[in-house]
């Protein structure tokens, strides 16, 4: 069965520092992969997605992610974090069974930004 793992439950970075959030997947074929962000009391907002092609994908709010098949990873990065980036981040992938595309989510990484 497909699975998505986020090894880090909680990360704290200083404003202006760089950020990398880890995501590992377990899939047989080339997966589709997503990163979502959830601010307190808000729904999930799509940051970026990987379907195929260029393994470095750019998203909104200055985020990017790199798909590395050899490491089964899709880590999220940002060169300089802003205080408003404090939120919960989820990596996700669809099941790709039949026509259903239900998403399997990681357990999330909570980002805290110190000033």
């Amino acid at each position, binding site marked *: 069965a497909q699975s998505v793992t986020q090894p880090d439950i909680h990360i704290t970075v200083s404003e202006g520092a760089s950020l990398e959030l880890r995501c590992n997947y377990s899939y047989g074929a080339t997966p*589709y992969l*997503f990163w*979502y962000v959830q601010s307190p*009391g*808000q*729904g*999930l*907002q*799509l940051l970026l*997605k990987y*379907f*195929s092609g260029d393994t470095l994908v750019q998203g909104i709010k200055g985020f990017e992610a790199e798909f590395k098949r050899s490491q089964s990873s899709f880590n999220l990065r940002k060169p300089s974090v802003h205080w408003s980036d404090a939120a919960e981040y*989820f990596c*996700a992938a*669809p099941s790709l069974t039949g*026509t*259903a*595309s*239900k*998403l*399997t*989510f*990681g*357990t*999330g990484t909570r980002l805290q930004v110190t000033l």
Partner: protein
Amino acid sequence: GAGVSQTPSNKVTEKGKYVELRCDPISGHTALYWYRQSLGQGPEFLIYFQGTGAADDSGLPNDRFFAVRPEGSVSTLKIQRTERGDSAVYLCASSPSRGAGGYEQFFGPGTRLTVL
């Protein structure tokens, strides 16, 4: 344009009561999903509609949970005989369900259900 909306935003009920949670998807999106998010966890899939029919209800935890989408647009998640363990945020998402772009789901703000 309007995004996915969910009502109510918060629902407090007593153990054993019946609740209905409503989801209004993005206009034109044929696929609709319900997820449940418990505290400190990622969302977990409950049920998926393609049009009016439930294409995959494998995530519903038991027969107290039921969902409908009678006209292929608005969906209602129904929970009978609520239990304290049902307390969670219930998220709805929709997608255009065409090609690779159909895998991108747009989420509503969720309904926070608290069972006392």
